[in-house]
């Protein structure tokens, strides 16, 4: 990194603008201001139009929360359905256990596989190899892209079978499911999932050979931790600092701020500031709960029990994909069809909290219910909103090291660093535009 530290353009000013950050979900922009070779300001701007979900949930019935909140995000609808169900169930005082709980984990495995593989092969890997898209990459790496597409499809097949369809599944309800599958229906997934484990391992070993910048930051990782499982739906919220709280204490420890440049609220840990959610945080806080094979492959890919380089999140996504495939096989092997597809969820007044691990990190929901189950208040904190400050911090750390790059190369490097987080701006409200202002008159704030 020696020559990268030498600002080639000291005392000159340049403005770089990228009107649309591609290969992210939603609409955002990045603004970078450089004066005389010094980085002055970084803003991740989210101009995805707000959709006011928390407001439009008021007056809706408690059983509608999973179907309505799924529409916040077409990439991770299952995460919204899971957090909504858990929060409503918490308010009603019911718990869902046994095979129904296992089926929820299985559905989440499907979403993790689909979402991670989409990001690894179609959104992120092309950055490391200098391709504009996976379709461009497929011209030189056809077999790998084909493998990724098949792997992604297997994740979607789980969603289609268990959820009815991949995007906005129809089969999830407060208390469980509308219909639970027969053993033999799930058995049909076994052959593909067995192939998928090997494909996920191959993907991990391949992405581990990509060129990674030597870049680590002092992050505070936050994720769920469960005594026995790699976390999906349940656990305590823990951090690489001293945090260890119940989900119901979330709002005492985390605050949201509204800043002028973003339609997504910025999250911060009270008294501590930026924090980091998502695959790197989960992995680093839960390594011991991965399967033996996932741990072995992670080590073979050069990862330790924790990983602090956000660019290597692409490897961790592959490790989590491998885990999800193995976990899906475990659930299917031990599945006994429950007699009833759901636990009754009669209306009951109260307040409930839920937090589950969306592919991009923790997703918090809180609902207040009236006597007849009507939702009177709702609060939703998506993972990308929580990572916004950390993304800006990464860019502050990264840009000074790459000032010698041309404008277009610097822009691409910044985009890649943003894509490390697989930002889902649809969730955070929602397209990225990059302005690098090196002090020219055309600067757009």
């Amino acid at each position: 990194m020696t020559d990268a530290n030498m600002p080639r353009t000291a005392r000159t000013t340049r403005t770089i603008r990228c009107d649309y950050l591609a290969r992210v979900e939603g609409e955002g922009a990045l603004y970078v201001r450089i004066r005389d070779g010094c980085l002055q300001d970084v803003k991740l701007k989210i101009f995805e139009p707000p959709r006011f979900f928390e407001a439009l949930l008021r007056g809706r019935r408690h059983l509608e929360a999973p179907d309505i909140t799924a529409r916040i995000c077409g990439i991770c609808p299952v995460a919204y359905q899971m957090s909504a169900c858990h929060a409503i169930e918490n308010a009603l005082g019911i718990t869902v256990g046994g095979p129904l709980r296992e089926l929820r984990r299985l559905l989440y495995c499907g979403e993790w596989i689909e979402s991670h593989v989409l990001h690894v092969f179609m959104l992120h890997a092309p950055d490391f190899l200098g391709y504009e898209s996976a379709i461009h990459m497929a011209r030189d790496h056809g077999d790998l892209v084909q493998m990724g597409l098949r792997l992604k499809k297997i994740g979607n097949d789980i969603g289609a079978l268990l959820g009815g369809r991949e995007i906005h599944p129809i089969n999830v309800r407060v208390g469980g499911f509308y219909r639970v599958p027969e053993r033999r229906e799930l058995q049909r997934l076994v052959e593909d999932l067995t192939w998928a484990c090997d494909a996920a391992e191959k993907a991990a070993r391949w992405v581990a050979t990509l060129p990674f910048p030597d870049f680590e930051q002092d992050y505070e990782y936050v994720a769920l931790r469960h005594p026995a499982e790699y976390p999906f739906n349940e656990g305590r919220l823990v951090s690489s600092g001293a945090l260890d709280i119940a989900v119901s204490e979330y709002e005492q420890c985390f605050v949201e701020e509204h800043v002028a440049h973003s339609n997504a609220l910025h999250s911060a840990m009270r008294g501590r500031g930026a924090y980091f959610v998502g695959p790197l945080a989960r992995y680093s806080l839960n390594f011991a709960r991965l399967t033996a094979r996932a741990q072995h492959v992670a080590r073979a890919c050069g990862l330790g029990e924790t990983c602090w380089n956000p660019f290597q999140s692409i490897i961790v996504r592959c490790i989590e994909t491998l885990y999800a495939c193995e976990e899906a096989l475990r659930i299917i092997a031990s599945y006994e069809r429950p007699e009833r597809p759901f636990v009754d969820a009669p209306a009951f007044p109260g307040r409930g909290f839920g937090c589950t691990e969306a592919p991009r990190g923790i997703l918090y929901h809180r609902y207040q219910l009236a006597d007849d189950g009507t939702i009177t208040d709702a609060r939703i904190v998506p993972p990308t909103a929580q990572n916004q400050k950390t993304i800006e911090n990464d860019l502050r750390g990264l840009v000074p090291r790459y000032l010698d790059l041309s404008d277009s190369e610097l822009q691409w490097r910044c985009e890649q660093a943003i894509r490390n987080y697989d930002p889902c701006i649809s969730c955070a409200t929602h397209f990225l535009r990059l302005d690098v202002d090196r002090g020219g008159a055309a600067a757009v704030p």
Partner: protein
Amino acid sequence: MARLRKPKLAVWKFSSCDGCQLSLLDCESELLAVAGAIDIANFPEASRAVTGGPYDLSLVEGSITTPHDAERIHRVRRLSRFLVSIGACATAGGIQALRNFKDVRDFTAMVYARPEYIDTLARSTPIADHVPVDFELRGCPISKAQLLEVASAFLNSRRPNVPTYSVCMECKRKGATCVLVASTTPCLGPVTQAGCGALCPSYHRGCYGCFGPMENANTDSLNQRWQALGASAADLVLAYRTFNACAPAFRDAAAGLDAERRP
């Protein structure tokens, strides 16, 4: 006319969840074949590479909710030979059109601490309210099979084969038991356009209207049926007011029930 070049496709996003454009990336088995047959010229969610217009086919996802987007859709129209709006947001305003029944300033204040930072229109409206649209593809989300059918139809100068009959037709064809008759489960299937493959009834739940109203939907008759099952006018209003709340037939049905409730 012989085509000397691959047709150019553009995908545009307005206010939405990204799910409908993701449907294109979810065509895993067909994606590389599609990319071979057409030039994916502008699809930011999938590629950094953008080729300028005009485009042979634009797929437009999302509803219009900001003054900027109300301008931008006109530019998209000018650049597009055919414009197809995809999904409940683009064809009916989406779930975010629930604001149309309230004062959006209250909504902003409920969600955001500094409402003055938010630039939003009072109503969420479908694409066809702003520019001429060549075809509206329904669904929340759209069906992948219908998306491929519509894209293929427009690029081959033929009419898309997308049925406008009800979910009931799909249910019968599938041999699914009628949940409304057999288990007295309230179901919007009789007034909802087909396209999902009668998913909900196949999973033992009532249809909740993702594909919006069918052609000539008889909502009055369905209302009576639901009320005979014990549903209240309030239940029906909520059922019509979801992802296609501002599709005319659902909007009018809910407004009628609302008026009865509050004479």
